[in-house]
């Protein structure tokens, strides 16, 4: 893995297949790129273009299919394919979600929730350790966006993540938008959530758009769905500024996966993230003097 001195100081963007050719042709200025390896493992042409881009940009590998929370285990063949890609492009980060997606031989193509209890913690910690040993590098675990929880949970998500860090030495990817979405949907305070995360473990931020819809579980209420299909909303930007003040500037990534906009729009969002981070951090430092 590239050393900390080489981590990007400005925000990057999620690299999506519709933008590949334009990225290769124009090589716009952006801090870094993040890919979902699952989009490249079975697409040799896209993988070839990615190799070109990896000569010019720092790349982060953000997995969506590793399923560290599955009781039926992680897909070893998939892990091998990811390791081959990781060894080829030498990313700045390898990350994934606190979730599960696979049950037996079925891949459910979603980030499904876990109960936060001792059994789930043991399982996830064992998988994260196995993953880090297998990849030979730290793994960043991202907080999920939640719509339901489990009555059987015995700890808060932040406690679960803190304990996971303590047991495995993993790092955390703080998805600020997910934190906002989950807090709204599950009825807790997003700022307290940020305060509850272990500051030393935060290695990266994510920001993505969500979509409000009617909450059928709470008539007349509103549910926020983490669609990555829209611009980042103002409350998420505000929470991002708060997270910057708490954790300091970290590599930040703009995610936009559905209704993918023109590349320029993504780059604008990344530029805005940079400005907000600078302003928030400078204000924090000034207040501390």
């Amino acid at each position, binding site marked *: 893995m590239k050393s900390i001195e080489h981590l990007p100081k400005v925000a990057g963007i999620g690299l999506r297949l519709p933008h590949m050719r334009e990225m290769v042709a124009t090589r716009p200025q952006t801090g870094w790129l993040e890919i979902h390896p699952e989009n490249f493992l079975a697409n040799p042409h896209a993988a070839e273009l990615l190799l070109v881009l990896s000569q010019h940009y720092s790349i982060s590998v953000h997995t969506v299919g590793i399923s560290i929370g599955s009781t039926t285990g992680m897909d070893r063949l998939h892990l091998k394919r990811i390791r081959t890609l990781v060894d080829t492009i030498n990313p700045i980060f390898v990350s994934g979600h606190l979730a599960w997606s696979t049950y037996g*031989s*079925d891949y459910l*193509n979603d980030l499904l929730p876990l109960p936060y209890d001792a*059994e789930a913690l043991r399982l996830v910690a064992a998988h994260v350790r196995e993953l880090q040993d297998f990849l030979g590098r730290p793994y960043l675990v991202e907080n999920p966006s939640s719509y339901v929880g489990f*009555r*059987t949970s015995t700890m808060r998500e932040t406690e679960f993540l803190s304990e996971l860090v303590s047991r495995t030495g993993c790092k955390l990817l703080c998805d600020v938008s997910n934190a906002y979405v989950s807090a709204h949907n599950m009825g807790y305070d997003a700022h307290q959530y940020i305060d509850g995360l272990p500051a030393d473990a935060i290695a990266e931020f994510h920001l993505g758009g969500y979509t409000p819809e009617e909450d059928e579980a*709470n008539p007349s209420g509103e*549910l926020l769905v983490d669609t990555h299909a829209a611009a980042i909303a103002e409350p998420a930007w505000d929470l991002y500024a708060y997270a910057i003040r708490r954790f300091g500037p970290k590599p930040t990534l703009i995610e936009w996966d559905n209704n993918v906009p023109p590349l320029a729009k993504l780059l604008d969002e990344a530029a805005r993230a940079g400005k907000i981070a600078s302003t928030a951090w400078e204000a924090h430092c000034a207040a501390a003097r």
Partner: protein
Amino acid sequence: MPQLDEIQSLFHRAVLTADTSRLVSLLCGGRFPEKRFAVHKRHYETSLVTTILAKFPATAWLAGTRFLTEAATRFVHECPPATPCIAEYGRGFPKFLSACPAAERMPYLHDFAELEWCVGQVAIAVDEPPVSATQMSTISPDTLPDTLLTLQPGVCYLQVSWPVDELIKLYLKDSAPDHFAMDPLDISLELQGARGEFHMNRLAVAEFMFRKSISQRRSIEDAAERALELEAAFDPGQALAALIAAGLITAVTQGAEGSKT
């Protein structure tokens, strides 16, 4: 208190079948958490149906988007992905589609969807440097019959019972006539593609058998025998020369030891 595996088993069943009866009591989130669970079920269904529709736009053009969406919706629930690489999902959809009752009036639908799947696969390939005629000429005549050849990654061989290659060309050119008559016709197709481009060739049945056998890692002798069974006048030497000239051979493996060029 249920174990984690039981919870995931219930979740799995609920996502695929909508049976949330035993899961609901475990969930929290709003006054009616089962309504929130619907977000996960919807995401599974919508994301995969969208994936299938994106892989089969020509089939949707031919059979109608509504028909294809309904078939894809049943497909994603009956045949979940087996791998996190969703780019690999949908291989079984042409066969599934042809078994749908409404497909009876479109007996060519399976062949058409199969062709579209193959086009999608070869178009994302990356071609490799071909073996030259000069390199091929260094193979000893004694070892040539047992030699195995590797073909370009973006080559696919497909036999269909309808002239669906003509039909898909209409889609690609966006030039559908008001009426298009089509009768059953056995066709042997070679698809070649790389980096977003592709083309199709109709092959004579013996040449198709020769090339397909080569692509399946059969020896040159075996491939030639299979072709000769179909057409006594088949010329293996000429067929091999044509493969070389087309730049389709990327590696040569000689003898039982498998030394590779």
